[in-house]
């Protein structure tokens, strides 16, 4: 039984659940007990707040993914769990970057911001805050580019997804 485990991978999972206290604990237990690490988790209420949509990005062994999804679906509070197909979904993440303000580096910094279609949100005599949104890979690239500019703090929302297909959520509200 000395099988070496395959490398971990990162998965995006979309969950539709009833909006009740404790649901998040039940969900995170399923990940934790199968040694999955949650990278980001975005929750927002849908349909009059009776339900919640979660987009979870988690890292773990591929062999456990099927069990994670099946056990999420088994939770009484969960209405649907699936792995959205990249081709069927729109993916967006938003990030805020705080950098040390440096007049010498400022022109080249502005070029980077422009390239990533970022916004300058705040500017003081010692710091500058930039907002960038787009695919998570784009944010990663932007973050890398900003490293030489005295990056002080990064806050990322985590990935949010929306299916291109029309889903009939209204059936649930009846």
């Amino acid at each position, binding site marked *: *039984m000395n*099988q070496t485990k395959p490398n971990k991978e990162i998965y995006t999972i979309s969950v539709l*659940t*009833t909006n009740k*206290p*404790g649901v998040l*604990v*039940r969900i995170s*237990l399923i990940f934790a*007990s199968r040694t999955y690490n949650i990278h980001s988790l975005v929750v927002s209420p849908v349909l009059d707040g009776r*339900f919640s949509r979660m987009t979870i990005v988690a890292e773990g062994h591929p062999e456990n993914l*099927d*069990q994670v999804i*099946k*056990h999420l*679906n*088994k*939770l*009484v*509070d*969960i*209405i649907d769990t699936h792995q959205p197909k990249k081709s069927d979904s729109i993916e967006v993440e938003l990030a805020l970057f705080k950098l040390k303000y440096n007049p010498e580096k400022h022109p080249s910094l502005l070029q980077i911001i422009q390239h990533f279609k970022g916004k300058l949100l705040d500017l003081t005599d010692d710091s500058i805050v930039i907002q960038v949104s787009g695919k998570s890979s784009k944010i990663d690239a932007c973050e890398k580019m900003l490293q030489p500019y005295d990056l002080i703090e990064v806050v990322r929302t985590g990935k949010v997804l929306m299916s291109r297909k029309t889903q009939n959520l209204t059936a*649930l509200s009846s």
Partner: protein
Amino acid sequence: MKKEMLNGAEALVKCLESHGVEYIFGHPGGAALPIFDALVDSPIKFILTRHEQGATHMADGYARSTGKVGVALVTSGPGATNTVTGLLTSHMDSVPIIVLSGQVISPMLGKNAFQEADITGITMSTVKHNYLVKDPNDIPRVIKESFLLANTKRPGPILIDLPKDVTSAPCEASLDAEVDLPGYNAEPLRPDKAGIAKMAELLAHAERPLILAGHGILISRAGEEIISLAEKLQAPVTNTLLGKGSFPETHPLSLGMLGMHGTAYANKALVRCDLIFSIGSRWDDRINGDNSRFCINAKKLHIDIDPSEINKIVKPDAYVIGDARTVLKELLPLIKSSDTKAWVKEVQGYKKKYPLDSKKKGGLKARNVIHQCYEIVKGQAIVTTDVGQHQMWAAQYFLTDKPHTWLSSGGSGTMGYGFPAAIGAQFGNPHERVIAIVGDGGFQMTLAELATVAIHKLPVKILIIDNKYLGMVRQWQELFFDDRLMGVDLEGNPDFIQLAKAYGIKGFRVRNNASVKKVLTEAMNYNEGPCLIHAEVMKEANVFPMIPAGQYADKMILKKPLTKMEKPTGST
């Protein structure tokens, strides 16, 4: 006159009544007082246990033996945490129980109030679902949902945490509430026709089919269908520990239990079969220690109601998600009778060549006591067990023919389960003979319930297999750890007969082969109340056959090997 409004606790009790609850097993405490007050005016019989763990196992034994939901009621804090083992036991074995726990008043939640425990948080991974009720008007809905959840699809335990202010406050909601479970579909699934057709096709081509009968057959009540299937296919049937009773073990096609301590012939058949058909079993590591070698040349078929069991351990060649009975009903008409004469003959050969050891020479052997007990009652009994050597011997020698008459903690292996489970089973089946076969170790974990069994004069027969060891652990230390024994010695056990006497319970003692039959016959026919049979057996017997943990069935040993064994690779 104005009709008085019910409070939460009264509404709760009324709802339990309307769901047909006959008994509640439990233990009171401050936070549960309103519920106890409401029970005073209810026809539901409250059975006071001596420990909350006992209450959960009684509810479990009641549920397994009747098919109905078992109910336990405890208070907050330690009362609630004492139910965790019982919840795990029911959860692992898919048993429908509901545990009601009192809780501190809602304004004090999360403030470390006296006897506060976050029991919904603690039990999340040992229940099918749980509730913390914050509004008395939710009580009727929560109760209705709990009964539905507990006993539909794959059954399991539900915990309902009830703050004292919620059970004390008026409940204005209708007792006939609507369930609100948008994430749970209790409707029976329509089995996948393509999967069924593929199963039929693979079965038609199998020359050496083997049916693996699991607990799911019992839960779905597919007893008749499984017999039809086996007979039509002329396929031998082996059962899991929890599958005992799903297919009569005295049937000519039965091979009894397979796995770690299963019969040699069942394990031989497993290694030789060219198709294995699991019905309501989860390919547990007690039967499949090494999945990389498990039946690699055999087609694997799987019926399970829980989609998460499909592909969890074994990748089936065909599977159907659904209730075993419904699926089998659709599969049966597609089954063609096949020629398996050579295979059945081969398997019968294993039965003759590798029978279970029944030699009686030497000292008093546990397995002989159990087998003798089986013969005396002609198998007519509900048997509960604890966990360990006696459990395996009971599984091997106490054949089970009827559904819901074998109650044993399989998945969680809970010592201390057997005796309270027998009490629950006796309450649910007052006219049946109930025997608790327990070890000296496990029995001492829950023996406080001797008071419960005595007070209610239940004719439970407690058969203590006393080898003054924690025998299964000792066996492992002997076989795998050079006989370096640690933490297994139970010398200094109480005199169990004297102990029984202290509770006013009739005691019988068995010390040698000569007296076994006579004493057991007397004990099995003693119905004035409970009785305890103290069987002082040989100290150092081992359970065989044995497949070391982490190994495939072809590594089965029938007796202690002369050479030193490697430490097992499996978890336990």
